[in-house]
């Protein structure tokens, strides 16, 4: 017995010694990955040579697109070595930052950033690593005009010198997505134009929306599921961001009003008081919450990735499938999105190839371009998920009609929606400041705290966690 334990220990030590010994060279044991992964793996083992582009992303979306591009363009001449690190555990940014700073052959050549933290990379602390698109040899002003890229996306992807260094492929301008049956019962119509009118679309004010909420409440219907649904619209409607010119915390009156909105939604029973991404929120999509919910604020991806799978069916008549429509929101906003960037310090030989990929993903408006396929759901064959894309030009010639929306063409609403969104009131601290603000709003709205206390705690938390004092 004793001998066996020692033998096992010794074997372990020896194995490790061996492993360490050859650890310096290339990877020792590549124990049979499947064939699909083979091409990327080959690329990886060469450690990022001159014909390999290192791509960093936080989901498999962009790597999937690039693989598709290489597959359909055999003369491209480069392979791609992808690194995907999820944002869930907060590891993507530290890893990307270290990799950009360390440089060398394995540094990222092309990388992606999500709306929640993109400003850090396009105009914040890490913007010194981003290569402006014009240095990629792209005639950026003309390309943006031709593709009709939404202004909010351009504003976010512009660095301090006014050069565009990041753009996306998805359009995340938001709309109001509502239940047709409820609209008919309460307002006598389910026509998107008329409902938009009733909700005060384009007025840039909440007044008519709350009037509608009161009317819905009389019929025991909540206008939204929880305060998280209106937050993105409130955030975007403010003239100023969280930080003023002196680098101090500034609470825009429209954002401060979120406290009252949040409280009203609960006190007037205008919502089901759910929290986004929790069980009860999803149940409201199926119409099985405490009381029926009229609609959700969201961009196109919310329809396809969240509402449709949670509606309780997959064909008209099942669950709430086919009972939905999209209309313009009272206040323009956007929610989420991915921006693609290039590393300023990459090997000059790779610039042309990276430029080709970025152009194809973000600016190509032809039917061979990524966005056309993305908008029509044909990137991976017919019948895929349709999504709104960054280019207005592409959406104009694409078909965004969905059975889920009873045949409505969602692009009719989402193209103008992108113009209402505001990309100028953001800061690189928003992800965290928003969290603190919504936490305090919740405490106030459920009656755990007074309004002043909530604001004071918020200021204190921002000051202590981010080193940003209140003005």
């Amino acid at each position: 017995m004793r001998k066996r334990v020692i033998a096992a220990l010794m074997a372990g030590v020896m194995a490790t010694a061996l492993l360490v010994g050859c650890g310096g060279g290339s990877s020792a044991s590549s124990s049979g990955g499947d064939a699909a992964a083979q091409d990327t793996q080959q690329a990886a083992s060469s450690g990022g040579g001159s014909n390999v582009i290192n791509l960093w992303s936080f989901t498999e979306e962009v790597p999937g697109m690039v693989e598709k591009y290489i597959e359909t363009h055999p003369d491209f001449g480069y392979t791609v070595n992808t690194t995907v690190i999820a944002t869930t555990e907060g590891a993507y940014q530290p890893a990307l930052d270290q990799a950009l700073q360390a440089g060398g052959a394995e540094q990222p050549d092309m990388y992606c950033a999500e709306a929640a933290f993109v400003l850090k990379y396009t105009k914040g602390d890490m913007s010194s690593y981003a290569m402006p698109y014009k240095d990629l040899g792209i005639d950026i002003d003309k390309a943006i005009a031709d593709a009709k890229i939404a202004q909010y996306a351009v504003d976010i992807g512009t660095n301090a010198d006014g050069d565009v260094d990041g753009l996306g492929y998805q359009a995340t301008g938001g709309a109001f997505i509502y239940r047709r049956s409820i609209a008919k019962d309460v307002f006598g119509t389910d026509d998107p134009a008329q409902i938009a009118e009733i909700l005060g679309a384009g007025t840039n004010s909440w007044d008519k929306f709350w009037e509608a909420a009161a009317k819905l409440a009389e019929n025991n219907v909540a206008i939204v599921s929880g305060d998280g649904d209106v937050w993105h619209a409130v955030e975007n409607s403010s003239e100023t961001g969280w930080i003023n010119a002196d680098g101090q915390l500034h609470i825009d009156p429209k954002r401060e009003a979120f406290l009252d909105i949040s409280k009203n939604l609960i006190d007037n029973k205008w919502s089901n008081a759910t929290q986004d991404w929790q069980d009860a929120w999803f149940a409201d999509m199926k119409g099985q919450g405490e009381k029926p919910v009229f609609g959700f604020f969201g961009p196109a991806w919310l329809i396809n990735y969240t509402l449709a799978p949670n509606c309780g069916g997959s064909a008209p008549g099942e669950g709430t499938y086919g009972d939905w429509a999209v209309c313009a929101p009272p206040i323009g906003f956007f929610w989420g999105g991915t921006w693609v960037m290039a590393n300023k310090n990459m090997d000059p030989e790779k610039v042309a190839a990276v430029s080709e990929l970025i152009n194809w993903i973000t600016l190509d408006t032809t039917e061979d371009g990524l966005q056309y396929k993305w908008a029509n759901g044909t990137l991976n064959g017919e019948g895929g998920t349709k999504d709104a894309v960054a280019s207005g030009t592409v959406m104009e010639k694409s078909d965004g009609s969905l059975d889920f929306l009873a045949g409505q063409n969602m692009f009719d609403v989402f193209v103008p929606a992108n113009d209402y969104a505001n990309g100028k009131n953001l800061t690189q601290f928003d992800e965290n400041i928003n969290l603190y603000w919504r936490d305090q709003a919740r405490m106030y709205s459920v009656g755990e705290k007074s309004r002043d206390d909530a604001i004071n705690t918020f200021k204190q938390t921002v000051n202590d966690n981010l080193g940003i004092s209140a003005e």
Partner: protein
Amino acid sequence: MNKKKKTGYAKYGYIFTLPFTLTFLIFSLYPTLYTAVIGFTDLKGIGKTDFNFLANPFENFQAILSSPTFQLAFKNTVVLWLCNFIPQLLLALLLAAWFTDRRFKIKGEGAFKVLFYMPNIITAATIAILFNALFGYPMGPVNDLLMRFGFISAPFNFLVKKNIARGIVIFIQTWMWYGYTMIILISGILGISPEIFEAAEVDGANSFQTFFFVTLPNIKTILLFTLVTSLIGGLNMFDIPRLFQNGGPDNATLTTGVFIYNQAFSGSYMYNRAAAASMIMFVIICAASGLLFWLLRDRDEAKLKKEIKKREREMRRAGKGA
């Protein structure tokens, strides 16, 4: 003669500890020094690689100590730790006593011992998500159950109540770690020579007496380990509070670990402040565990030595007798 031999063997002390020393120097020296130094600098933000020492070297330390959020986080950490550690240790001691007492041959004893450690196997992220869902509002399993049995008439929003959120974190911590503590204690008890227990049994000691007068004194060194490591783990508590409600609601479960993480990784990347906060916690932990050592070690070691000698003498005598 004895002394001479001891010095001869002393070199083995250095040899046997050499791998540890080398590994530490290679892998941890730089990170440790880095942390110790940047607390005195203006290193902030990740894009900035050069840094200067501050004119007032303790500026970061003062900022942390005077910050109400840090004070609250520290208070939370102590409360959360004490409230989970005390029941956890008592439960673990009780179970360890039951499972090692030959008089209670509990049915399925082996299975229980193995099962109690199981919650520790699942990653903290999964557990945090499950508990979050359990207490969901306005729909969630706990609310459903309470309403079905008529305890409440309308769904209750557990997660916005500060003390309930704290209670849930305390429960999770206790539930995840009592099995671990129990195993440590059992292994300590198994290290005690069975003859001591046999002797106690022959002397007619009952379960309580055996536990308090034989088991406890003999696992004092292991108890010290449990106390100190739990203190360190508890004051660095991070996973569950962060993953469960991200320190919320309203900072009710914000621990110093989460605070330090926020300083370093949320938006402002204040590495210097985070390092200063880390060093402050380091000093506090050192002082607290120093106290534990002082309370438990000296008396203990002298006593143990005496007891070992006594035991050896007795054994020799017994051996001679037989």
